[in-house]
């Protein structure tokens, strides 16, 4: 059956019902447009959050611990022996020969590595106590592995070296404690060591748990708080390609024997939440597209009802049932295709206007724009799904209509 003929008939049907056709196209356009906007908004906010996360924390963290207890001599000699409650013979914490290890890693690592001494501490100020994570860093190496230098709001990273017992704290923590750069705080280490430290800078990462719960100092200060001079208990890696972190972490762990945690592993719960959110949003978007196709269903149902006589006559002339059915599928495809094109424009416009909207961030007090991610994939997927929904919606009324027996209609008309 000549496709041109079927297309001509379909085109005639849809163009002779302008209002109905426009309503159908508008339904499809709304579904596609809002789906694109939601996808852009969802992925934009997600990517923005991940960028913040990836910028704020090391891509891979090598810790001075192992995933599993090392194989014991007794296990090697007696395969069936069971061992539990192992005591660590190495009483000194930290990574062994960190400089050598860093040099070895730098020889192949697509990125850089810096040491740190990480411990917990309590800040005692103004009668209040706040527990924090104290990260001792080398400011010259730190710039290679974190965005801390660019996140400074007051002071500079290098100021850590210009004052004794200097610390840098987050803006949120400073606000909580009521301190400013230049003020002094009492820092209490885990072993009870108390040192008065000077706040030489304030940073803002954008992540509340970091801005309120993490402070930075020189390595020597952190080591002093730990009571372990010279100890390095963490190597922090920054990679050229953050998404390669899991693979690199596995390689580093295999090379060093120390537990190496990628940013994905460290935030597995969060990423899992993203997956759930993705699923929910995709379900909602799918429902939107499906709902929008109901307009097409209505139109095709109406046309097939109105055209029962034409269907009968086409069948009586010798057009096959599937060919007549294809006419209505083509009609739905025409409505869908034009609706999708309009939906693409609508989606782009919505994304553009939404990106101009700013939301007040209660944590930072700043107004931040809605992050929109523009991706051709959003347009392709929304368009593709919508087209399938439209043609699918047309299939059932078309099938029902074309099953009609021509004699019944011809007799009825007579």
């Amino acid at each position, binding site marked *: 059956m000549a496709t041109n003929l079927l297309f001509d*008939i379909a085109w005639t049907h849809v163009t002779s019902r302008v209002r109905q056709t426009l309503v159908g196209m508008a339904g499809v356009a709304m579904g596609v447009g809002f789906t694109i906007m939601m996808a852009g908004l969802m992925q934009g906010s997600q990517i923005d959050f991940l960028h913040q996360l990836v910028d704020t924390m090391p891509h891979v963290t090598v810790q001075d611990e192992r995933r599993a207890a090392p194989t014991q001599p007794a296990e090697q000699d007696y395969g069936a022996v069971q061992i539990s409650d192992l005591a660590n013979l190495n009483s000194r914490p930290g990574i062994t020969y960190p400089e050598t290890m860093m040099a070895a890693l730098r020889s192949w690592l697509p990125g850089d590595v810096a040491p740190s001494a990480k411990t917990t501490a309590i800040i005692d100020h103004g009668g209040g106590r706040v527990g924090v994570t104290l990260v001792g860093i080398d400011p010259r190496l730190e710039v290679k592995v974190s965005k801390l230098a660019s996140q400074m709001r007051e002071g500079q990273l290098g100021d850590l070296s210009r004052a004794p017992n200097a610390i840098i704290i987050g803006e949120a923590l400073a606000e909580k404690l009521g301190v400013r750069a230049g003020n002094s705080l009492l820092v209490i280490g885990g072993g009870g060591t108390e040192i008065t430290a000077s706040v030489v800078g304030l940073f803002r990462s954008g992540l509340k748990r970091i801005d309120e719960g993490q402070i930075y100092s020189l390595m020597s200060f952190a080591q002093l708080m730990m009571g372990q001079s010279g100890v390095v208990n963490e190597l922090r890696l920054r990679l050229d390609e953050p998404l390669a972190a899991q693979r690199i972490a596995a390689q580093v762990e295999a090379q060093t024997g120390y537990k190496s945690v990628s940013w994905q592993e460290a935030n597995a719960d969060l990423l899992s939440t993203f997956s759930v959110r993705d699923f929910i949003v995709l379900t909602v978007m799918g429902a939107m597209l499906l709902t929008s196709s109901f307009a097409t269903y209505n139109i095709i149902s109406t046309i097939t009802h109105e055209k029962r006589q034409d269907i*009968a006559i*086409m069948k009586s*002339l*010798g057009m*096959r049932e599937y060919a007549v059915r294809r006419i209505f599928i083509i009609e739905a495809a025409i409505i869908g295709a034009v609706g999708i094109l309009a939906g693409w424009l609508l989606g782009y416009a919505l994304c553009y206007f939404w990106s101009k909207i700013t939301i007040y961030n209660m944590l930072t007090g700043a107004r931040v724009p809605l992050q929109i991610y523009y991706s051709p994939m959003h347009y392709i997927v929304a368009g593709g799904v919508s087209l399938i929904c439209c043609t699918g919606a047309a299939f059932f009324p078309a099938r029902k209509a074309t099953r009609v027996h021509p004699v019944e209609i011809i007799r009825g008309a007579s």
Partner: protein
Amino acid sequence: MSEIALQAVGLVKRIEGAVSHTLVNGIDLAVARGEFLAITGPSGSGKSSLLYLLGLLDAPSDGEVIICGQKTSNLSESERADVRLTRCGFVFQFHFLLPEFTALDNVLLPMRAAGKIAEKEMRERGLELLDSLGLKDHANKRPNQLSGGQRQRVAIARALSNRPEIIVADEPTGALDTASTEQVFGILRDIADSGRTVIVVTHDPALAARADRRVHIVDGTIADVTARHAPAREATAAGA
């Protein structure tokens, strides 16, 4: 003996249901190539049902329809559609033209559906047909711009477009005035005279009398057969 264009053998059409009803009851009929056959009978006698069976629009409950030597009882619905498209042309009481299409587009419809000739040739043939039926100036008009007689002539042109061997017409003049009736019947007569088989259901005895043969149906069976100038055509009406 003339070549048989269409033959019905023991044709039965029953409507099954709470109360079964037999519309066509064991009809045997042979129609020769180029014959003009009129089927008459009172309302509800089964003449239209017989016509739909002969034109393969409907499937018989029993019996066989043979078109140009081809048995059709074992054909699938799609194969029956192909036979209708290429071997039969239909004209109904109402024109049943597609309202959004022009007269020419309606005439082209079966040719385009068959897809056997080039677009240019189709248009030429379509215009030729409209011209032969006095509709050349109306080729680009839509059905609602035509009179009843003109619409029916367009429907005849459409029935002729694939050059079928058989034209099946169900009361083609039923909705026309006297002048148009005369014109349409004249056209059908000409078609038959040109060598095609024409089978017409009509209530009009005067028109039926102008056919080569008249088959009168009562209660689904052939009650009477009258030949206009027998034995000019030697078609048989067994069972009559």
